[in-house]
């Protein structure tokens, strides 16, 4: 490399970096026309994005995160420039509390008026001032009906030694404790220390039967037959059904978790109006229906139901039957008690 080339490289590097900076500081107009959507991987179909871009003459840039905690860390760390994001219900509650989320204008969100009845008043945002439910579902048990011939109806089946080494649990402390607390007839949001202690003892007794604490790949474990019972969200169980049709999904009689991922506009967003148009678009009945079909999670918009294929609507892993609702509960903030859960969970994982 000769000196000339070095100088050339120097100029090139500075030029590229400069160009980069220039791109960041696009003219105000251009900047207003790019929407930044921070979401889970594969959470929106590319053709749906293209449709929104075409209709509004804007560009949508998608960035992805892998967990609610990562999302919060990123925003708390000072990342700005994202407009719309999709935290789960409990994380939306935390983000609202911390002032990270902007107030919404109901007039701009006509599609949010037709949400499923039970999603209209979320416990942490009863008047939909900050968060609009987008997708929802339950936590229950996926099982292989070819092996387990009598359909399980209780969380107790996860303690059945006949299935030792063929059980997977979520790798999520609140959900795992939720399962055992419910099997004891308690709430997953209990702050009763004695109950939590007993739950821990029961989980320690269960541990030898558990093949894996897995949140990400239990659909594969189920589909490949490595486990025959999996504690988890309905969507991945529905995915496993495609590869192994004998897979079924049940929310036990003691009840399960009701969850919803919520669309929010960030307080730091410079394009709140466009952000709300985007949220309204994602909730459009036909758009929402296509999303439900793609992701195998139920759409929060009631009006989407007519556009969802029957086999999706009838699959309890995707669309929870409405008669289940009285038995479902939201996961709520347990305040200081979280530390007790933390300690018990660590103890469980260490043993």
């Amino acid at each position, binding site marked *: 490399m000769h000196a000339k080339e070095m100088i050339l490289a120097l100029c090139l590097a500075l030029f590229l970096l400069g160009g980069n900076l220039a791109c960041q500081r696009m003219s105000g107009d251009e900047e207003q026309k790019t929407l930044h959507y921070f979401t889970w991987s*594969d959470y929106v179909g590319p053709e749906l994005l293209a449709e929104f871009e075409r209709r509004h003459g804007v560009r949508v840039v998608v960035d*992805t995160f892998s967990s609610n905690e990562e999302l919060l860390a990123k925003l708390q760390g*000072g990342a700005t*420039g994202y407009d719309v994001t999709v935290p789960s219900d409990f994380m939306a509650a935390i983000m609202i509390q911390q002032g990270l989320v902007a107030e919404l204008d109901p007039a701009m969100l006509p599609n949010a008026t037709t949400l499923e009845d039970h999603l209209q008043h979320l416990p942490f945002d009863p008047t939909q001032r900050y968060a609009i439910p987008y997708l929802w579902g339950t936590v229950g048990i996926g099982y292989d009906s070819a092996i387990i011939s009598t359909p399980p109806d209780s969380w107790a089946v996860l303690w059945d030694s006949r299935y030792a080494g063929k059980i997977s649990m979520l790798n999520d402390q609140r959900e795992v404790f939720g399962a055992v607390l419910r099997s004891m007839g308690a709430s997953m949001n209990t702050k009763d220390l004695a109950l939590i202690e007993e739950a821990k003892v029961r989980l320690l007794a269960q541990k030898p039967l558990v093949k894996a604490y897995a949140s990400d790949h239990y659909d*594969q474990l189920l589909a490949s037959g490595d486990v025959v019972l999996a504690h988890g969200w309905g969507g991945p169980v529905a995915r496993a059904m495609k590869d192994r049709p004998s897979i079924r999904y049940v929310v036990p009689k003691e009840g399960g978790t009701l969850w919803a991922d919520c669309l929010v506009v960030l307080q730091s967003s410079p394009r709140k109006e466009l952000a709300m148009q985007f949220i309204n678009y994602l909730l459009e009945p036909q758009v929402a229906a296509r999303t439900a079909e793609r992701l195998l999670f139920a759409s929060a918009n009631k009006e989407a139901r007519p556009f969802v294929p029957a086999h999706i609507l009838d699959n309890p892993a995707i669309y929870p039957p409405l008669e289940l609702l009285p038995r479902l509960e939201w996961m709520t903030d347990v305040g200081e008690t979280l530390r007790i859960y933390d300690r018990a969970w660590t103890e469980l994982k260490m043993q």
Partner: protein
Amino acid sequence: MKQSGGWLWRASVANLFFLYGPIAALIIFSFNASRLSAAWQGWSLHWYRALWADQALQAAAVNSLWVATVSTLLALLLGVSLAVGLEGLPGRRQRQIEQALLLPLVIPEVMMGVSLLLFFVLVRMPLSLTTVIVGHALFNVPVVLVIVRARLRKLDPRLLEVAADLGASYGDALRYVTLPLLSPAILGAGLMAFTISLDDFIVTFFTAGPGATTLPLKVYSMIKSGLSPEINALSALFVIVSMGLIGFSLLLQRR
């Protein structure tokens, strides 16, 4: 002698298998027809086709290549000028400065990521692709420095004296003697920096802002929606490209 040779050979093979077994498995399973990583259902190029059609992944790949290119050029610029400049300092000062410059090589990457994030927030630089590039350039400067310095030490100092005798100014000597002799090391260092930047997850994770999802970040977030063999196919391509670049870089350094 012969016996110990055979033993050594077997140990080397075992070692190689330990190092490359998992990567080989990854590459083989990227051709699996089944969606399940555990079950083999015959050969297929399906996942490579899926990869080809995946726009989100392609955008991430473009981001990664862009970051790697610009940050490598920046790191070369800073690293080479540092290496050459250090040569002119007295021995003790030289060692002190060099040690300070090499610190980023031993600092845990997580700390570097967090400190970069804090720094960018402090100077009010919004996180973006630019901050990722700056971060990558930062950890690549010492890499370039080490490689180029190693080559510089092997240069015969008399060459520069000869150049001066023949009337060359410092600039001329640098231009016509030092840099041409360094060029294999510079190219090698550049390829190494490029590879490291392409693969980096941790620093990128902390410094990425809107529109700055690179391939490693994207792959990590894809795990959430199930381990698709598309990831295997992508990783296989990445491994092959990275190995090729590293091999090329070593080849150049040997020259």
